[in-house]
């Protein structure tokens, strides 16, 4: 099968972020970047599908400046065959513009499946996948936690709050990948070496106009440090008193 996986470069979410001087972006100094977690699952899912179902091709696509090549190379070192960078000075805030550029790239690719992460772990919009599906006129299964592909059809499980849905669709289709899918494999050195020789094409992203702009970014309010009331049963009375008088939750 020919599978495209759209991957996004995101900062390590464990970092203590600072807002840049512009006030509309995070300060990039000292940030470590990786694939968005769900996108890692998506690459892994694609690779396993092709490993299981015989000859196929996994193509990874990322939109952004040249640094996104790092993440593309990582996906190649995991085992993807080919990579495409849709070159842009920065990743737009507007998911619609990203979706437009991705759809233009994907349209004539002849893909059986197009994978997205359920959401990017940084911007958390969960919109790019569904919008691309809409533009390409393809069925779209979102937040999929298990997937079966056979004879031109897909069956996917979507874990919801308190319930699960099983959906069925015809290929080609767009699927956004959630937890529950296999974790991204650790690239072997052999894979890393092989990735250096795999094709990575660079094309200008056809973004179009942005319909949404970022006005301001701010940090969440600081949380006060926790307090240890005491240890053992002796501390219970004091804890209850504080929960009642100070926290006012009892």
């Amino acid at each position, binding site marked *: 099968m020919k599978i495209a996986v759209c991957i996004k470069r995101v900062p*390590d979410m*464990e970092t*203590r972020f600072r807002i840049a001087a512009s006030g509309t972006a995070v300060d990039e100094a*000292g940030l470590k970047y990786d694939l968005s977690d769900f996108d890692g699952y998506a690459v892994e899912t694609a690779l396993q599908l092709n490993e299981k179902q015989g000859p196929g091709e996994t193509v990874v696509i990322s939109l952004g400046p040249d640094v996104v090549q790092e993440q593309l190379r990582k996906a190649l070192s995991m085992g993807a065959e080919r990579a495409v960078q849709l070159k842009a000075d920065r990743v737009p805030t507007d998911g619609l513009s990203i979706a437009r550029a991705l759809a233009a790239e994907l349209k004539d690719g002849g893909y059986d499946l197009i994978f997205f992460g359920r959401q990017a772990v940084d911007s958390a919009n969960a919109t790019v996948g569904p919008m691309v599906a809409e533009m390409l006129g393809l069925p779209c299964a979102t937040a999929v936690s298990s997937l079966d592909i056979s004879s031109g059809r897909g069956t996917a499980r979507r874990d919801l709050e308190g319930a699960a849905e099983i959906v069925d669709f015809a290929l080609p289709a767009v699927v956004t990948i959630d937890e529950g899918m296999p*974790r991204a494999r650790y690239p*072997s*050195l*052999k894979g*890393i*070496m092989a990735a250096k020789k795999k094709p990575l094409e660079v094309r200008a992203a056809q973004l179009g106009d942005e319909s949404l702009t970022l006005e301001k970014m701010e940090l969440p309010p600081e949380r006060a440090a926790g307090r240890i009331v005491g240890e053992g049963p002796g501390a219970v009375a004091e804890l209850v008193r504080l929960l009642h008088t100070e926290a006012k939750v009892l």
Partner: protein
Amino acid sequence: MRIENAVFLIVLLLAAGFFSYNVQRLLSYLSIALPDDRGGHPLVRLKNVITVAFLQKKILRDPVAGPMHALIFWGFCVLTAGTIELLLHGSFPAFSYDFLPTSLYQFYSISQDLFGALVLGAVAFAFYRRLVLHPERLEGDNLEHSDALIILGAIAGLMVTMFGVNAIELALDPESITRAKPLSFALSMPLRGLPIGLLNGAHAVFWWAHALLVLAFLNFLPYSKHLHIVSSIPNVYFSNSQGPGPKGVIRFLDLEAENVEQFGAADVDQMTWKDLLDGYTCTECGRCTSVCPAHLTGKVLSPRKIIIDTRRRLMEKAPLLLGDYSELAHHALVHGEGDEGSTSATAILEHRLLDNFITEEELWQCTTCRACIQECPVGIEHLDHIVDMRRNLVLMESRFPPEVLPTFESMERNGSPWAFRPDDRAKWAEGMDIPTMAELVERGESPEILFWVGCMGSFDDRSKKISVAFARILQAAGVPFAILGQEETCNGDPARRMGNEYLYQTLAKQNIETLTRYDVKTIVTFCPHCFHQIGNEYPQLGGNYEVIHHSTYIERLLEAGRVPFDTDAGKTLTMAYHDSCYLGRYNDVYDAPRETLRRALPIVTMVEPERTRDRGMCCGAGGGRMFMEETQGKRINVERAEQLLATGADMLAVACPFCMTMISDGVKAKDSEVPVFDISEVVASRLRA
């Protein structure tokens, strides 16, 4: 030349020819291996041969089997002179050593007799030990016991026939110069006066039996574990286990080499010739396995099996690679394993050492404690095999226990094995007025030492207290020092020991870049893993620093009287110190931590656990085991804690943050209240306020 001399000469030449054919064959198998530079430092290597091989230093670590083997070995060295005389005499009857000065010849004669008797006694004991005592370390790993019994029987036969020949010669000619042989002479007494024809006939029988036994023995060697008689001397010579250079340094892997597509080893032709020579040399004595912490706690790993499997695999694969298919039949004959199909050439070539002989599970159980290497009497380096196969697993196949994935990823992203924020690295030092290198450089100063804190000391709550204690000692002693703060990252040791050489080199290069930027000369650290890695392994990547472990550094400060103590001499305490593998067996630091404790607490009584110093047992954390689940058998740290608690000590002392975690957890698991402290905490507790 009489006819039997001629016959013997032909037999001798045939036997020698067959032996040299086999030696050739075994040497040719080494040609499938990778190169390894083991030259250089001939004097150190010769010294190792003298102490380890000739003086049997390691063999003698076993108080029972040690003297037994040493006697047989020394006996062999002495008796070989007699064997040569006998063989030459058989071909050229005129030949004998009697051209030697009489006193020397007499000395030689006496030594033959004496060692003949000693060897016979030792062989008798060896039989008794194998057949009656059944020592535990000679069991397991599918050993072929018949091998040892054949050899012991042959040695006994050699001694008996030697005495037979000598006694009969003396019975025939009591005035012969060989009468200096006391035992043979005594044995000859009852034979005197027997018909000469009978004596002559018996002499011929004993002589031929002895001579043929020698030749058979020689030719049996290449087919048995007794090949070590031939290969152990070169193996000890080429072994790095006793130096030259620091011990336990892992082979450098050039990741940028052109045209290299295999990293690590999955099979014998991806190993070095020294690894394969290890295989030839293993005597199957089990000394290694008997001290292995994984084996002792009921896990499948047996270092002996790793080496024997290397040999078994070499014997079946090398001939095929060299185009010799006749070995196939031999292999099927000797090992008798599998059905006909499984010994076909294709099946053998499809197999490999990893998975078909040695499982992933075995490899991941190793704590890299070096106990096996320390104990091996013939210079075998098990860790080269284990780490090289781990390298293949990680670098080629991305196979490792699932819980290791977050460890690798954190090391990559956060520069420590845990998902802590790198910005919090120096949090332990807040309010202590400890400068970072960057701050000092800004002020135009440079410190006397760099205190390398390590990931445990930076992030682990218990170990952070050690960082504070050590920093307080340095401050009290007035040592100008700095830390790297956020610029420090993991030294890479866990990654390297787990086979992830790529990640290791990335981290190590980054640290070397930082250390070079600050022109650091002297580093002090309380983590033996950082200590070993930066001091002994960074030189492979061009990082050369003087690295001192805090035990040594504090001892020096105490010796120089630079640490201001309270007048209180401290309570009387009974203390047991647990040796860290990377401090002890890797770096021979045994006395500094003990001396530090003694100086800090003048009335302390040190007690030693049964396994101590170079025989100390691992806490279970090394080799990346800290980050893996321990699912099989008893927990190593609990076993070690029991050993330490059995000393009855009031307090346990360690000199490694990993040991701290493991031993504390082990003590807790035993519901014991005995406290565990780092040596620096003991010293800091006595600092003048």
